[in-house]
C-alpha cells in the first residue's frame, strides 16, 4: 500500500520537521493569482467525494475536499491541478483561467489489480520476478465456501486444494508443488492475514479482498524457515481513502448431500441371500433399516455477512460482522461461528505518519460426538457395518444392541447417547505504524497479539455402549487449550529512482513467540447423567484410580532478520535479491541454530525492447528466473539435546514410581530442512490484452530432510535419532492461460485455464554420519483386522507408492491368484504372503492437475463454471477392501460383494486382504462450482447494488473410481488412502443474496 502514496504526493525537494508539517496545508504556498473551486464526484454513483487531494502541480500548494466534495484553491492561471484519492484514478486538469472546475474521478480498478502483495510489501505486477499468483475476490470460488483454501480451489496452477472431508469443521488440504517432507508434519503453507501469521479460518471468506500465493523459493525465501510449502498472503477488505458511508450485506443459504452414496446390502438383499442359501437364516432380525438414512439429514446452513465502511482521507474504518451456522449431513455435526473485525486507519502529519489498528474476534462452537472432535468417524463405520434387518430400537424402546459382535455398536445410539461441545474464542489485536521521515524512506512497525482459548466437554450417558457393554457407568471428559502468539516486526524501506535506475531496499527484523497449553481430564462412574459433561467432579472414577488427567505446554520463539533489494533498470531489467537469517527455539543448543535463506531472481521485460516494437500482437512479455532457499523446521522442540522423560510406572519397594527414562538422543548437528528451488518463468499478454498468462518450470531440491534414523541402542540411549539425512526432488511445469474470448457491452466470456505437473523422487536417505543398508521404509496403515502397511517410501522412487500383493485372478475355489514381483503367477497356497512378495501397486499422488474456469456475462446475468481434474494416480478403496469380501458375515457389505471377482463365478473365499484388487485409478474431471447470478441496478433510493445467485459445489464428477469421491486425502506419506471412517465428501447447493446500501 505504501507504494501508492508515493504516487499521490509529488516529490518534495526539501524535508521538514514534524511540526512544520502540521502547518503545511494551511500556510505553505507561493504567490496566488486566482481562485478555483468546484466539486469532486465519483463516476459510478455521482456522489461527492470527500478527502480528495487537490494539488497544484510542481508546487507544494494543495487542499483537500470537504465532506460535500467541495474544494477551493488559489493557483496561478496556467496551473495544472492534480486530483487524487486512493481507489480512484488520478487526474491532471489544466486550470485555463476557469474559476469553477467540477471533476469526476473514475474508480481505479486497474491500479489495485496491478499491485501484487509480496513478502513485507507490494510490487507492481510487471516488476515481479518470481512465481506469484494473485486471486481477487471476483475470481474466488462462490457458494458455501468456508475457508481461505477453498476460495483458491482450481484458481492457481500448482496449488492443489481439496476438501476430502464433508465435516463442517474440516478445513482445506493444500499442497503446493508436491510433497516436501518425509516426517509428515509441516505440510501447510504459511498463511499471513495482512502480514500476520494466521490460519485458514482466521477471517471468514466474505471478508477477504484478495489472495496472493508465493509459489517459488525466490519469493518465499524472505520468510525463511516457514516458506517451503509456499506463502499465502491474505489481504482482507480494507478501509482506505475517502468513503461515503457504505453498508454491504450478504446471505448464503445452503444444503448438502453425500457426493456419491455407497450402495450397501439392504434388508431385502439379506432375505434374498437367506433364501438363496448364501446366508444363515438367523441373520434376519425382522426389521428393515437404512442405517445411513438413520444417521444423516438434509442439512441447512446459513451465512450472513455485514460490512460497514466509512471515514475520510485521514481517518477511515471498516467493520464486519459475520455469522456462519453450518450443519453437516450427519446428525449432530455442525459448526457455528460468529466473527467480527474492525480495521481503522488514520494518517497525520501530511500522511507522513500512518496508523492502522485492527481487531479480529471470533467465537466458535460446535457439537461433538467424538471425544473432543466434531463427528466420530467410527459412528459412520458402524452405519455401514450394521445389519440392515436390525431395528434401531428394541421393543422396550431402548436402542437395539448386539453386544457380542466385535466392534459393533448401534450408530444411532452412539449419536444420541453422546453429548459434547467445543467452544472457542479467538482474538487478535494488531497495530501498525508507518512513518516516512524522508521522501524515500518508509519505516514500519507492526505488533500483534493473538490469543485462542478452547474448552471441550464431552459425555457418554449411561445408555451409551460404554456403559451397557463396557461398564463405565457414565463417562465425561473435559479439556482446554490455550495458544498465544506475539509478533513484532520492524521494517525499513528505502526507495530511490535515479534516471533509469530504480532501487528499493528493504531491511527488517521479526520476532515471534508462541505459547501453547492444553490440559485434559476424564472421569467415569457417575451417579447420574443429568448434568451431561458439566459436573466432571461427580464421577467416582477418580477415587477408583480410573480417571485420566493430562497436561502439556510449550513455548517457542522464532527470530529473523531479513533484507531485500529490488533493482530495475530502464523498466526492462529487473533484479531481486533477498536474504533471511533466522533461528528458532527448535534448534536450542544445536551447533548451528541460525540458518541463512538467500534468494535471487531476475526478470527481462522483452516487450520493452525496441526490437519488439514491430511485433504487434505481443503486449507484454517477461522472462523470469529465480533461485531461492527456504526451510522447514523440526516439528518438535529440543531436538539437539538429550532428553529425559517420565515414563511407565514400576513397583519399587511396594510403591508405584514413575520411571525416568531417556526420551531422545541428542543430535547437536540438527538443522533446518532446506529447499533449494529454481524457477524459470514467462509472463505474457498478447493479442490486444485479450490473452494473458504465464508458464513456470520449477525444480525443488529438498536437502537435509529430517528423518528418525535407526541407531543401535546401546550405545545410543534411544533407538532412533532425528537427523537431517534425506534428499528429495520435485519438479514440474505450470501453465496458466486467461482469455477474454468475447468482450462486448452486453455479453462477455472470459475463460481461465491452468495446468500443472509434478514429479517427485526421494533421492537419498543417508548422509556421511548416517548410512542405511535399507533404502526404504513402509508407512500408512490399513488398521484392523487387516493390519498391514499400505505404502513404501523408497530411495529412487516417488512418495506415495502403494506397496502390497498383486492379484491377477481368482481360482475356482475362490482364492486369489497372485503375481510375484518376478512376474510369476502363483496360487494362494504357493504364494508365501511375505514382505518380499509385495510390490508397487500404484501411486496415490496425481501427476497432472488441470483447472478450467469460465465466466459468462449477459447484461445483468452472469454464469460461472469451474472445472477441475487430477490425473494419473491411484486410490486404495478402504470401503471395498473391508466391506466387499463375501466371507465377512458379521458386518454388512457393499452390494458389489455379490458381483463376480475377476469374472469368477465362485465367490471370494480368502480372508480380508490388502491387495491390488482394491487399488483403483482415481483420475477425475469435476464440474465443481456452478454459479448463476443476477445483478440488479439501483433499487429505490437506498439500495445501490443488489445481486442474487444460485451456486453448487462439487456438482458433477466424471471418474471410474467407485468410492464416494476421488478427491481423497493427499497429505503425508500415505496419500491416496480413502479411509473407511472418513466423513464423506458432499455436494452443496447455495442460494445467495448481496445488497449494498
Amino acid at each position, binding site marked *: 500500500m505504501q507504494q501508492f502514496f508515493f504516487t499521490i504526493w509529488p516529490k518534495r525537494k526539501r524535508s521538514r520537521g514534524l511540526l512544520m508539517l502540521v502547518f503545511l496545508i494551511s500556510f505553505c504556498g507561493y504567490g496566488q493569482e486566482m481562485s478555483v473551486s468546484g466539486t469532486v464526484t465519483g463516476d459510478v454513483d455521482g456522489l461527492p467525494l470527500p478527502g480528495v487531494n487537490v494539488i497544484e502541480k510542481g508546487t507544494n500548494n494543495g487542499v483537500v475536499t470537504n465532506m460535500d466534495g467541495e474544494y477551493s484553491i488559489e493557483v496561478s492561471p496556467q496551473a495544472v491541478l492534480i486530483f487524487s484519492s486512493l481507489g480512484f484514478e488520478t487526474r491532471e486538469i489544466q486550470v485555463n483561467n476557469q474559476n469553477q472546475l467540477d471533476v469526476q474521478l473514475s474508480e481505479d480498478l486497474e491500479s489495485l489489480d496491478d499491485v501484487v502483495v509480496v513478502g513485507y510489501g507490494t510490487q507492481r505486477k510487471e516488476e515481479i520476478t518470481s512465481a506469484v499468483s494473485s486471486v481477487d475476490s471476483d475470481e474466488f470460488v462462490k457458494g458455501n465456501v468456508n475457508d481461505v483454501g477453498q476460495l483458491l480451489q482450481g484458481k492457481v496452477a500448482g496449488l492443489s486444494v481439496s476438501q476430502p472431508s464433508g465435516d463442517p469443521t474440516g478445513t482445506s488440504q493444500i499442497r503446493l508443488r508436491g510433497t516436501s517432507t518425509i516426517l509428515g508434519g509441516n505440510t501447510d503453507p504459511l498463511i499471513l492475514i495482512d502480514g500476520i501469521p494466521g490460519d485458514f479460518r482466521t477471517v471468514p471468506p466474505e471478508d477477504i479482498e484478495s489472495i496472493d500465493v508465493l509459489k517459488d523459493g525466490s519469493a518465499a525465501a524472505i520468510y525463511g524457515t516457514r516458506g517451503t510449502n509456499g506463502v499465502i498472503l491474505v489481504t482482507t477488505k480494507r478501509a482506505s481513502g475517502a468513503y461515503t458511508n457504505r453498508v454491504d450485506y450478504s446471505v448464503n443459504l445452503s444444503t448438502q448431500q453425500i457426493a456419491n452414496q455407497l450402495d450397501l446390502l439392504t434388508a431385502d438383499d439379506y432375505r434374498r441371500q437367506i433364501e438363496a442359501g448364501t446366508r444363515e437364516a438367523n441373520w434376519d432380525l425382522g426389521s428393515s433399516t437404512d442405517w445411513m438414512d438413520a444417521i444423516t439429514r438434509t442439512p441447512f446452513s446459513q451465512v450472513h455477512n455485514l460490512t460497514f465502511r466509512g471515514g475520510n482521507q485521514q481517518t477511515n474504518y471498516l467493520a464486519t460482522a459475520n455469522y456462519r451456522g453450518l450443519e453437516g449431513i450427519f446428525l449432530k455435526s455442525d459448526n457455528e461461528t460468529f466473527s467480527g473485525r474492525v480495521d481503522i486507519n488514520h494518517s497525520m502529519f501530511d500522511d507522513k505518519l500512518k496508523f492502522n489498528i485492527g481487531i479480529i474476534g471470533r467465537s466458535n462452537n460446535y457439537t461433538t460426538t467424538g471425544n473432543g472432535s466434531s463427528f466420530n468417524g467410527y459412528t459412520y463405520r458402524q452405519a455401514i457395518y450394521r445389519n440392515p434387518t436390525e431395528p434401531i430400537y428394541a421393543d422396550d424402546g431402548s436402542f437395539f444392541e448386539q453386544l457380542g459382535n466385535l466392534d459393533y455398536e448401534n450408530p444411532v445410539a452412539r449419536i444420541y447417547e453422546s453429548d459434547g461441545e467445543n467452544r472457542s474464542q479467538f482474538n487478535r489485536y494488531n497495530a501498525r505504524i508507518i512513518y516516512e521521515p524522508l521522501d524515500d524512506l518508509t519505516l514500519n512497525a507492526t505488533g500483534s497479539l493473538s490469543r485462542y482459548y478452547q474448552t471441550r466437554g464431552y459425555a457418554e450417558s449411561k445408555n451409551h455402549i460404554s456403559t451397557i457393554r463396557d461398564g463405565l457407568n457414565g463417562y465425561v471428559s473435559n479439556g482446554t487449550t490455550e495458544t498465544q502468539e506475539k509478533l513484532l516486526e520492524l521494517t525499513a524501506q528505502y526507495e530511490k529512482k535515479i534516471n533509469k535506475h530504480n532501487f528499493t531496499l528493504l531491511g527488517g527484523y521479526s520476532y515471534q513467540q508462541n505459547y501453547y497449553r492444553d490440559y485434559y481430564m476424564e472421569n467415569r462412574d457417575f451417579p447420574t447423567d443429568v448434568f451431561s459433561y458439566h459436573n466432571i467432579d461427580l464421577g467416582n472414577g477418580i477415587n477408583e484410580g480410573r480417571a485420566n488427567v493430562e497436561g502439556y505446554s510449550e513455548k517457542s520463539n522464532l527470530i529473523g532478520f531479513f533484507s531485500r533489494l529490488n533493482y530495475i533498470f530502464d523498466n526492462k531489467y529487473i533484479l531481486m535479491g533477498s536474504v533471511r537469517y533466522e533461528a528458532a527455539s527448535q534448534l536450542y543448543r544445536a551447533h548451528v541454530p541460525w540458518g541463512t535463506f538467500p534468494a535471487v531472481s531476475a526478470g527481462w521485460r522483452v516487450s520493452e525492447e525496441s526490437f519488439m516494437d514491430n511485433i504487434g500482437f505481443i503486449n507484454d512479455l517477461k522472462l523470469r528466473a529465480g533461485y531461492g532457499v527456504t526451510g522447514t523446521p523440526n516439528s518438535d522442540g529440543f531436538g539437539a539435546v538429550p532428553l529425559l522423560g517420565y515414563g511407565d510406572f514400576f513397583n519399587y519397594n511396594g510403591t508405584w514410581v514413575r520411571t525416568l527414562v531417556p526420551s531422545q538422543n541428542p543430535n547437536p548437528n540438527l538443522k533446518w530442512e532446506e529447499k533449494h528451488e529454481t524457477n524459470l518463468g514467462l509472463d505474457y499478454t498478447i493479442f490486444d490484452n485479450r490473452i494473458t498468462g504465464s508458464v513456470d518450470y520449477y525444480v525443488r531440491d529438498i536437502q537435509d530432510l529430517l528423518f528418525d534414523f535407526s541407531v543401535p541402542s*546401546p550405545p545410543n540411549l534411544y533407538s532412533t535419532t532425528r537427523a537431517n539425512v534425506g534428499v528429495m526432488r520435485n519438479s514440474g511445469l505450470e501453465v496458466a492461460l486467461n482469455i477474454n474470448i468475447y468482450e462486448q457491452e452486453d455479453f462477455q466470456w472470459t475463460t481461465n485455464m491452468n495446468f500443472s505437473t509434478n514429479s517427485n523422487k526421494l533421492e537419498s536417505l543417508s548422509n556421511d554420519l548416517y548410512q542405511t*543398508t535399507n533404502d526404504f521404509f513402509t508407512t500408512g496403515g490399513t488398521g484392523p483386522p*487387516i493390519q498391514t502397511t499400505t505404502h513404501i517410501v523408497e530411495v529412487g522412487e516417488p512418495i506415495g507408492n502403494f506397496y502390497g500383493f498383486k492379484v491377477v485372478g481368482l481360482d475356482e475355489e475362490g482364492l486369489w491368484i497372485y503375481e510375484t514381483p518376478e512376474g510369476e503367477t502363483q496360487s494362494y497356497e504357493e504364494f508365501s504372503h511375505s514382505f518380499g512378495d509385495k510390490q508397487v501397486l500404484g501411486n496415490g499422488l496425481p501427476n497432472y492437475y488441470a483447472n478450467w474456469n469460465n465466466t459468462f456475462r449477459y447484461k445483468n446475468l452472469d454464469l460461472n463454471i469451474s472445472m477441475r481434474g487430477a490425473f494419473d494416480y491411484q486410490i486404495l478403496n478402504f470401503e471395498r477392501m473391508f466391506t466387499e469380501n463375501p466371507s465377512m458375515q458379521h458386518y454388512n457389505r457393499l452390494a458389489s460383494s455379490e458381483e463376480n471377482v475377476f469374472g469368477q463365478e465362485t465367490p471370494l473365499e480368502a*480372508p480380508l486382504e490388502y491387495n491390488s484388487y482394491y487399488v483403483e485409478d482415481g483420475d477425475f474431471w469435476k464440474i465443481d462450482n456452478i454459479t448463476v447470478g443476477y445483478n440488479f441496478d439501483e433499487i429505490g433510493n437506498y439500495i445501490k447494488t443488489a445481486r442474487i445467485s444460485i451456486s453448487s459445489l462439487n456438482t458433477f464428477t466424471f471418474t471410474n473410481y467407485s468410492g464416494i469421491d476421488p478427491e481423497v486425502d493427499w497429505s503425508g506419506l500415505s496419500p491416496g488412502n480413502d479411509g473407511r471412517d472418513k466423513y464423506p465428501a458432499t455436494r452443496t447447493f447455495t442460494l445467495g443474496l448481496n445488497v449494498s446500501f
Partner: protein
Amino acid sequence: MKKHKFTYKGIVLLFLIATVSCTKLEDTNYNTIVADEFTPTSDDVAALISSAYVDWRNTLLLWNGIWRSQELTGDEVVIPARPNGWVDGGIYKRLHQHTWTPDHDAVEQGWSRTYNGITNCNKIIYQTESGYIPMDEEQKTAALAEVKVLRASYYYLLMDLYGNVPLDTDFDVPEGYLPEQKSRQEIYDFVVSEITENIDDLSDSPGQEMYGRFNKWAAYTLLAKVYLNAEVYTGTPQWEKCIEACQEVIDSGNFILEPDQKNVFITENQNSKEIIFALAIDQNYTTEWNTFDIHMQTLQPANQATYDLEQSPWGGMAAIPQFIDTFDPEDSRLTENFIYGQQYTSSGEILNSTLGSYAGEPLAFINEIPSVDRSEGIHGYRFGKFEIALGSSNILNNDFPVFRYADVLMMKAESLLRTGKSEEAATIVTEIRERAFKSNPEKAEVTGAELQEGTIYDYGLRNENNSTNEGGEDIPYGRFLDELGWEFNQEGRRRQDMIRFGVFTSKSWFSHNPNGSYRSLYPIPQSALNSNSNLTQNPGY
C-alpha cells in the same frame, strides 16, 4: 531540521534496541528434561533404578513380545485366522510355521525392547559409578550388583533368542561407536560371571521391598536357568551347577509350593510364596496398551459378558488340540487353566456365537481347530490360567511370575534325571503333580522309569488339509517335557523347553512342519543389521 534528524535517529535507535534485545532463543521446556541440565537428588534414585526394570515387562508381554516368540512358535499355542481377522499379514502363521524373516515384528521387538533394558542398565551403572546418582557406598554397591544382574538377565534373553549378539557394557563411548558382536559362548560366559560376581552383594530379603527386583534368590534362579540350558547355549551341559543354584533357593526356606497352583495366578497373587521374580502389573499404573492382555487375545467378543469386561475381547489365541489331548482328563491343570465348553454370561445365561458361520448358535469351545488359515469362534480351548477377574479392563491386574518355586524344583528334577538320578527326580515331579490330582492322588505318582520314556504328545501335522503321524516316543526324557508343558503352559517359555528336548525343529504339529534346525535361533533383526555394520546374520538366514 535538527528536530527532524533527532526523530529519525531516535527511531533508528529504537529499532536497534528492539532488535538486540530479542535475539535469544527461548529455552523454556515444560514437558521434558534436558538430560545434561538435570542433577538427580536422592528422591530420584527410585525413578532412575526402576527405569531399567520396565523393559522386562515390555519385552515379555507387549504386542509381539517374547511371550509370543516363546509360545506361538511352540506346540501349545496358536493364533489361527479368525472370522474377525488375526491374519495381520501372516505374522502369527509365520511364527507357527517357523517361516519368520529378519524383519518379522516379533524378531524386531524381542531385540529392541531387550536392548532398551540394557541401555538403561548401562546408563545407571555409569551414573552410579560416576557419582551422578547420589548414593552412599553401601547403597552404591547394592545398586551396582542389582543392575548388573538385571543386565545379565536381559543378555540371558538375547542369548536364548538370538545367540550371537553385541555385548555392550559401556555407556560413555565415543561418537559413532558401534558395538562388536560376540558368540553365544561369550555371552554365556559374561552372563554367568556377572551373576556369580555380584550375587553376594544382592539383598537376601524376599519381602516386599525387593518384590519384582533381583534379590539373591531371583539371581540364583536366573543362574539355574542359564545352567539348565548351558548345553544348548555352549554345547557343554552344567547339570550339577544347575542343581547347586536350585539348592541355594530351596535351602533359603523363603519359598513354598502353593497348595493350589491357582494361587500363583490369581488376580491378587503378589503375596504368593511360590513367586520368586514377578513382573508387577496394575491396571491403574501399568497402562501401556497390551501390557498384559492374554484374556483379550484369547476370549471371544461374547465372553465380555462372562467376565463383565470393560472391553470386548478380540477372540484369537487358542490351545493346539494335540497339546490338550496330552492331558489326563482329571488333571486340574487342564480343567482350571483352560476355558472350554459352553460359555455363559456372568449371571449364568447361555452365550451365543456372534461371529462367523456359527453366529447365533451356542458358543461352546471345542478342542478342534480346522487349520492355522481358518477357524470359527468355537474352535480351540482358550487360556484361563491367569484368573480373569470380573470387571477386568484390557489389562489384567495379576502379576506375571517369571520365576517361581515350582520351576526351581523342576529344574533340579530335570538335572537329576539327566544325571542318572531318575528316582530323585520322580519324587520332586510327584510332589508337584500332587496338587493337580487332589481327587485322585494315585495319578500324581510318577516313577523314574516313566520320566525316561518318550513324550505322549502325538506329533504330526493335524489340520483340515493334512494329517501325518510322527508320535513322540523317540524323544529322550519326553515324558519330562510333557510334565513341563502341563505345569508351565501359558507362561511364555515353551520354545526354550522344546529346544532343550530336541523337539522344536524336528517335529510337526497342527499346521507346522519343521523348517530347519537353524530356526532354534532367531535371526538378527533387519533394523539391527541396518544400524550396526559390525553385525553378521545368524547362520541359515
